[in-house]
């Protein structure tokens, strides 16, 4: 957020939260005292294990005062304490955007590998700059780019991408720059701020800090309110609707709706305040990588938790600078491209939006979105109704992400091979199958090619029926090329080879990784195209 807006936003966030809490308390909700006590409890729990750095010591001092004051505070004093605690959170969250630094940052960013390794050290980054290829050669941006550009001038955009890797926000930040768009505001986990240089760039690219260890309800309110206020100020937002990196490698099916809801609140507030450009546009997009930096850790987590995410992974590949360097080098040497697919934008109610900013219904008839939020003759909030509207928009985002997903050679080859292996042992318990699939003796190459041809036909059918977008395989689907490209990628970067060809057969190496890359194509009922016995596979 730009410096002039920063202080204004903090005041606005604090005022709104204090006011809302007072109103809720009056109507029988959580009292100010209870909210403060809740904050104290969760924060003291967190601080028990937190390091004694400047930040945390500041919090310790604040909570010590708060604890002493709360015991004897009158209602108005409680409100003042709430104001102080909220202000502290708000100041931590709000970013420090500087247009001059942004200009500098975006000049540095195009040096792709440099960007990716800048977590290593400033010196390392600078020493490599002259030799490194340009990131813009690696990123392919396609889809409704013109509409996105047009809408960014007509209202506030919420970009809602799939989330595979911590590199996503950096790739997205640079892609937005390539599209000629201003920086988007987004919440980023504290681990992305751990390196001072990266933290500096993140702040100035529009990121604000999200500390997932802070479990207090008040902190979450601050995050939401800050996002709402930033949208009202016209800052485009980026938010990962999956909430966290997808552990399984599949396209997200369970979305967290928090920031979509903020978009609706911002829209209603804009209408109430008579803003000239009140509209909020949600733009789903999918990011696809031939190789995923953190694939091994993510799929491990997915399998361990049997689908229940641990939520915070602090020791993955992204925290190992050497690994990022290796990954970036491999990616570049393979000429691996990252595909960003921009879907059709929608309004906060899930209606498609045209390039001129007009919402339309499923029959293409224009819709005035402001009519959805009329309460007692004018625009107004209604918590229950607005929650349902947000679910509606969430369903729209989910449909778009699934429809516009793209599949690269690693996904296609992994899917075909995994299904062929599975069809050889359909009765085997799944986890046992993953552990023992090597015993199956691999699969003949002829079968792999045939399976890929069937997969290509099945994908084409999905395209014809509209279940998938026009080109789900962006670089052409020639089975021979898919196999050679896929094997080339799988033979590098990952510590364990994912697949290996020996003679006229293909053998699985790391089954968990094979499963991970295969998962991208699950949920479309494509398994039965490879083998009828896999009909209805989960």
């Amino acid at each position: 957020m730009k410096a002039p807006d920063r202080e204004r936003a903090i005041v606005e966030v604090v005022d709104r939260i204090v006011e809302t809490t007072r109103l809720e308390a009056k109507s029988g909700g959580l009292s100010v005292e209870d909210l403060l006590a809740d904050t104290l409890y969760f924060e003291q729990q967190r601080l028990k294990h937190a390091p004694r750095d400047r930040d945390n010591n500041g919090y310790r001092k604040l909570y010590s005062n708060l604890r002493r004051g709360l015991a004897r505070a009158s209602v108005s004093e409680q409100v003042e304490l709430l104001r102080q605690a909220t202000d502290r959170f708000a100041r931590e969250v709000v970013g420090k955007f500087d247009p001059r630094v942004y200009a500098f940052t975006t000049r540095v960013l195009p040096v792709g590998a440099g960007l990716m390794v800048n977590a290593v050290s400033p010196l390392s980054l600078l020493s490599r700059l002259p030799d490194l290829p340009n990131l813009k050669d690696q990123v392919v941006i396609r889809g409704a780019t013109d509409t996105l550009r047009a809408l960014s001038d007509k209202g506030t955009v919420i970009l809602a991408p799939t989330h595979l890797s911590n590199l996503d926000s950096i790739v997205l930040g640079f892609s937005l720059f390539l599209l000629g768009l201003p920086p988007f505001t987004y919440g980023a986990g504290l681990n992305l701020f751990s390196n001072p240089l990266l933290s500096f760039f993140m702040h100035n690219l529009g990121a604000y800090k999200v500390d997932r260890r802070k479990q207090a309800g008040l902190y979450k309110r601050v995050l939401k309110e800050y996002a709402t206020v930033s949208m009202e100020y016209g800052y485009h937002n980026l938010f990962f609707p999956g909430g966290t990196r997808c552990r399984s490698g599949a396209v997200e099916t369970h979305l967290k709706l928090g920031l979509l809801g903020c978009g609706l609140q911002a829209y209603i507030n804009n209408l109430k305040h008579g803003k000239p450009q009140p509209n909020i546009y949600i733009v789903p997009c999918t990011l696809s990588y031939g190789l995923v930096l953190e694939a091994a850790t993510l799929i491990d987590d997915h399998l361990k938790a049997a689908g229940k995410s641990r939520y915070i992974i602090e020791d993955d590949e992204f925290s190992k600078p050497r690994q990022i360097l290796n990954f970036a080098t491999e990616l570049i040497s393979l000429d691996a491209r990252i595909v960003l697919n921009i879907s059709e934008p929608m309004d906060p109610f899930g209606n498609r939006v045209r390039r001129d900013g007009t919402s339309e219904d499923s029959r293409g008839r224009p819709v005035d979105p402001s009519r959805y939020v009329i309460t007692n003759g004018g625009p107004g909030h209604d918590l229950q109704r607005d929650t349902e509207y947000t679910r509606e928009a969430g369903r729209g985002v989910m449909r778009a992400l699934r429809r516009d997903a793209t599949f690269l050679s690693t996904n296609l080859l992994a899917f075909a091979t995994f299904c062929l292996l599975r069809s050889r042992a359909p009765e085997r318990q799944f986890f046992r199958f993953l552990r023992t699939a090597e015993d199956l003796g691999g699969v003949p190459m002829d079968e792999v090619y045939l399976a890929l041809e069937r997969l290509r036909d099945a994908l084409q059918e999905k395209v014809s029926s509209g279940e998938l977008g026009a080109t789900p395989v962006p670089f052409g689907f020639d089975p021979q090329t898919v196999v050679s490209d896929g094997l080339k990628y799988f033979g590098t970067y990952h510590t364990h080879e994912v697949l290996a060809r020996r003679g006229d057969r293909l053998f699985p190496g790391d089954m968990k990784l094979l499963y991970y890359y295969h998962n991208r194509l699950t949920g479309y009922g494509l398994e039965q195209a490879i083998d009828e016995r896999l009909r209805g596979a989960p």
Partner: protein
Amino acid sequence: MTAPVTTAVKPIGVLGGGAFGTTLAHLTGSNNQQALLWMRNADRAAAIVRDRANERYLPGFKLSENIETTTSLAEVAERCQLILVAIPSSSFRTVVRDLGDHLRGDHVLVSATKGLERGTFARMTDVLRQETCCLKIGAISGPNLAVEILRGVPGGTVIASAYEEVVRMVEKPLHSPRFRIYASHDLLGVELSGAVKNVLAIAGGIARGMGFGDNTLAMLISRGLNEMTRLGAILGAAPETFSGMAGVGDLVVTAFSELSRNHRVGRGLAKGKSVEQILEELGQVAEGVPTARVVKEWSDAHGVRLPICQGVYEVIYEGAKPAAALEKMLSLPAMWEAKSTDIS
């Protein structure tokens, strides 16, 4: 820019001048609210206002003075915020698509039609969502024999919607000391119940028409309820919905009552009449007839066993003799009741 919105009391729109549409308009009018009833046929629309009666579908009943009629969907959209849609499922989409040309986001649409769309298996609220810009959508369903409601016999219905605003808006014109409104968030369960019980009502009519006793009917009702509930569970509905007013409540009334059109279809089939002949004599739509085919096609496609619905389908569409269909159903292997799986 937000268009100005008037807050004056608006009439309740009702689409469809059949028995249930007219009844909803009458209930509204009886609660001292204006109802605007849309019908295709201008002569019949005029006759309702002139005679205060719908002689074709509800002969002999005096209708409320608070009913106006129109043949213009644009007028309904212009004057009403809440619109109840009681159009047969076969023409539901066409009418709603036309209505969609005139709607805005603040309109509230409520389906009063108990059916499923052939080919898509869409519920009527799916059609409302697909063909209009409206999001505030709901459905009413329950043991609601039009004739009994008009006579003032005590009863009730369920209004289902994800939006509490929809529930509140429907409650106002319809709730009375003689007609109680219950609310539900399970739109899917309420609509499925309403649609599938029509098929089961035909089975009930067949059993009665063949002279079978209460044992048979009780079995049809309880096993029919099991079919409805299993179907609902597969599709994600709440099981408890099926034991409520819109589920077992509606099933009991249609399976037993001769006032039910679907029950009468079953009785006619038992007497050896063709469906065409029965429907002609009935002079009205019996939603169980098309729904039997929709449910059969769906259960075949998904490999779900629904023997009673299957039997009704065979009688209506494959010319099976009712006795043979019943015998086929009874001769199925013994099974665990709760699991609906064979004992062997």
